Structure formats: structure tokens, C-alpha cells
């Protein structure tokens, strides 16, 4: 069953989303379309990934939208979420000062990280890496890259010297800080583009499979929280993977930044390493 688009009482849909997704204004762009179509009211709460997941685990929202595969899997496995669908993806970028003191432009992400760490550890203070340090999706990705480069994050990276600094704040503030300190940092492309005008930072590395950033949406499990609104939640997830919306997503931001912020997930499921069902099959 889907929501009856003509019934009088508007239904409320509560979504918890990660900040970086919310800040791109993609959701602001999509919600009016959804609201009109389904006679619903969308309430979006944006928060750090951890806090967003907390809202989900307590049944305070109906839909969860984050970009941290590993933690999403746990969330699903623990039975808090259900029916995940992947609706968009893009890439993280390693940004840094134009002078590139570590000399890592256009190498692989793993190599770049290794070089930055090495230069940083020599005590040459002009090489600094600023980490989100807030257990966000971006931070998870950064940790994954350190791991892929062969380092134990908590012993060999974190706290290993003043070259590695944890910002402990949102993406925007972290970019501001990296800019101020002429440091490297890992950013999602959306936030970077939004801030680019105010920053002297340039893209250092933007290619590599490991930089892939996959956005998923899932329902909160009604079996665990009986009074979540699962009908309209399902509508929302299905809406996101519908053909029309996938097109909207793929073109969002082009007019403003000259390049898209997201790629539609629909046809690239292989590339991003998820099942076809996750990008195409509407929830029954």
C-alpha cells in the first residue's frame, strides 16, 4: 500500500540525515516534490552520523540517511533498520594547500596518506593533516584509507604527533581549519564545492576506488518500534530510487557548481559495489 495522495490528514515523515548530505540542499530540493505527491510533511533532522544513528536506534525517526556502509550494516544487523536502498554516490577528495608541501598531487589516496604521514612525522611542521575526528562517515572513510595504506589508525596515526590534528567538528569547520593551517584534509565533494569560494585549498587527490562515497536510505524497523510511520517511510525510499528522482539527483548542483554533486546510483550498482536490488527494487 502507498499513502493515499488525496486523504485529508497530512502524514509526517521524520528523517534523520547526515549533515554533509543535508548541507548540499539536495533534500530541500526533493522534499516539496515528495510532499505534493504524497500529501505528507517531511521533517528533516540533520546531525552527525553517530547522533543520527542514535535517533534511529531510539525510534525517534522513520527514515535514516547516512553514508557509512560499515555502520549501516551493523545498524541493519541489529534490527534497527530495514530495507536499505542506495540512491546516490560521489567521491571524497583529498584537499590541501596549493603548494602541496607533501608533494602528493594525483598519486593514489593510500600513497598520499603514507607520504603525508611520513613528512608530518619528520617534524616538518608545514605538513599537517586535519581529521574530522568525529566518527562521522567522512571520518570512517579516512580511517579506512589509513588502514588500506597499512597503518593501525589508533596507534600509528591518531596522536602520533602534531602533524595529525583532530578537528572534532563538522565538515565545513574542518575545511576552514585546514585552510587556516594550510593543511590537508579529506572532504566530501559537496561540502568542498560549497566552501570552495572562500578557501585557498585545492583538490590534491580525487581519484581512487577507496574515495567512493555511497549514500543509502533505510526505514526504521517497525517491528522494533511499532509506531514509526513505515508507510510514508517506504514511500520516501521508493521515491528516492524512482527514475524521475534519480534524474533530479544526477543533475542537482550543475547549474551552481558547473558539475554535479552526486551521481545517480541506479545504473552504477556494479561500480559502487552494491546489489542491483538495493538500487532498483522498490520496497514492497
Amino acid at each position, binding site marked *: 500500500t502507498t499513502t493515499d495522495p488525496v486523504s485529508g490528514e497530512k502524514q509526517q515523515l521524520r528523517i534523520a540525515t547526515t549533515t554533509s548530505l543535508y548541507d548540499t540542499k539536495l533534500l530541500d530540493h526533493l522534499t516539496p516534490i515528495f510532499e505534493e505527491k504524497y500529501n505528507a*510533511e517531511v*521533517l*528533516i*533532522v540533520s546531525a552527525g552520523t553517530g547522533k543520527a544513528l542514535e535517533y534511529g536506534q*531510539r525510534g*525517534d525517526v522513520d527514515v535514516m540517511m547516512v553514508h557509512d556502509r560499515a555502520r549501516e550494516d551493523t545498524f541493519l544487523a541489529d534490527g534497527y533498520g530495514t530495507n536499505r536502498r542506495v540512491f546516490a554516490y560521489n567521491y571524497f577528495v583529498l584537499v590541501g594547500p596549493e603548494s602541496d608541501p607533501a608533494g602528493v598531487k594525483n598519486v593514489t589516496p593510500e600513497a598520499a596518506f603514507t607520504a603525508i604521514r611520513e613528512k608530518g612525522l619528520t617534524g616538518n611542521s608545514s605538513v599537517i593533516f586535519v581529521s574530522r575526528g568525529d566518527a562521522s562517515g567522512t571520518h570512517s572513510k579516512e580511517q579506512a584509507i589509513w588502514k588500506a595504506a597499512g597503518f593501525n589508525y589508533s596507534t600509528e596515526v591518531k596522536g602520533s604527533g602534531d602533524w595529525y590534528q583532530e578537528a572534532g567538528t563538522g565538515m*565545513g569547520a574542518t575545511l*576552514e581549519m585546514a585552510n587556516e593551517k594550510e593543511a590537508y584534509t579529506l572532504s566530501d565533494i559537496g561540502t568542498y564545492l560549497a566552501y570552495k569560494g572562500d578557501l585557498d585549498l585545492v583538490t590534491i587527490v580525487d581519484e581512487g576506488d577507496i574515495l567512493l562515497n555511497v549514500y543509502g536510505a533505510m526505514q526504521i524497523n517497525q517491528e522494533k518500534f511499532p509506531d514509526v510511520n513505515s508507510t510514508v517511510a517506504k514511500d520516501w525510499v521508493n521515491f528516492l530510487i524512482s527514475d524521475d528522482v534519480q534524474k533530479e539527483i544526477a543533475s542537482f548542483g550543475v547549474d551552481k557548481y558547473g558539475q554535479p554533486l552526486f551521481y545517480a546510483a541506479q545504473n552504477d550498482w556494479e561500480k559502487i559495489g552494491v546489489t542491483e536490488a538495493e538500487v532498483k527494487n522498490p520496497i514492497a
Partner: protein
Amino acid sequence: MYEIIEGFLEAARLIVTLDADVMAIALRSILISLTATVLGTVIAVPLGAAIYFGAFPGRRGLINLIQTLYALPTVVVGLLIFLLISRVGPFGFVRLLFTPTAMVIAQMVLILPIMTGLTISALSGVDPVLRDALRSLGATRLQFFANVMKEARFAILAAVAVGFGRAISEVGAAILVGGNIMASSFASSTRVLTTAISLETSMGNISESIALGIILLIIALGVNLVITAIQHR
């Protein structure tokens, strides 16, 4: 620095064009914080009076505790309220999370200590001879409190001003229990000026943040002028 000037221009623009979104946010700020302040006053003033005039063991310690709670961070207040009203919390069934009501409660809790503390200070400023005079004139407990309050009205209204300032300027609790939601209906939205400022800042829109800050201060100025007018009546 030009962002500051831009902020002023932007504030002027938002105000003269009566930007619908901004007006709604500002109105919501006023409603929520005023309600919290009124409720806070209704609780803190009698509470302060009870503590000031009360003679019970641990009174000194209680006053110290209240003064300590001045340092209660808004995020902690937000968290505590959040735990209480989130779906799995003891009051989850009321479904208050992400509503303006929740924000009112959080702000009220936040300002209670300082309003109570300042009420106690205000009362201790009243000449003891006047208190004796009231008792001597045959005041009941209630009449006594009401009249001491009247003598201390200046300082108590100053406490109200402090409470309102703290309520309307706080953001940590508002964002945790309100969620900074911008929905299509006024009543479902919980975005207020501070959470909007916070959002704009996180998006790097400094001028917009400053513009909203200026609007917030204009509102505070208005409320303060009203309080001053009452004080000098």
C-alpha cells in the same frame, strides 16, 4: 571583515523584504523563548523566595548547587531532556521530541538555575527593616512574599532579562531536542534563530549568520525595552 557589513546589509534586506522564512524563524524564536522565560519565571521566582526565606538544613549547600548549575552546558540539558522524551524514554509516549514544546521545556530547565539564583540575590537586596515592617503589618505568608517581591521588582525583572537572554541565545539544547527542522508548516518546524545561525555557519554562510544574529539582537532589544518600561512604571 566585509562579512560583518554584508551581514548588516543582509539583515536589513531580510527585514525590509519581510523574508517569509526568516520571519517565521524569528517569530518561532520569540514564542519559544518567551514561553520558556514566562514558565521559568513562574517557577524560579517562588522557588527562589522559598529558598531565600526558608530555614532548612542544607540551604547554604542548595544555594551553592544552584550557583553551580549556572555552568550547566546547554548540550547537557538538551541531552537530559532528550533522554526523557525520546521514544524509548519514560515520557516517549507523549511524542514531544522535535517539537517546539520540547524546546520550551529545555530552555526553561536551562534558565531555571540562573533565574532562581538571581531571584535569591534580588530578595537579599531588600532592606530587612521593610521585611520586618511587612510582618509587623500582619502580612500572611503569601502577602509577605508578594510584597517583598514588589520591593525587589527591579532586580527580579533584571533576572527575567537574564533568563530571556540566555533562552533565546542558546542553541545546544534547541538543536538536540528540536532538531532544527524546517517543515512546510509553521507548527511542525523547530528552526529558530540560533539553530539557523548554526546551520548557516556550518554551511559557511557567514554573512547570513551575522544577519540572523542581528535580527536576534533586535528582538532581544525589543523585549528588554518592554522589561525596562515595566521596571520604571
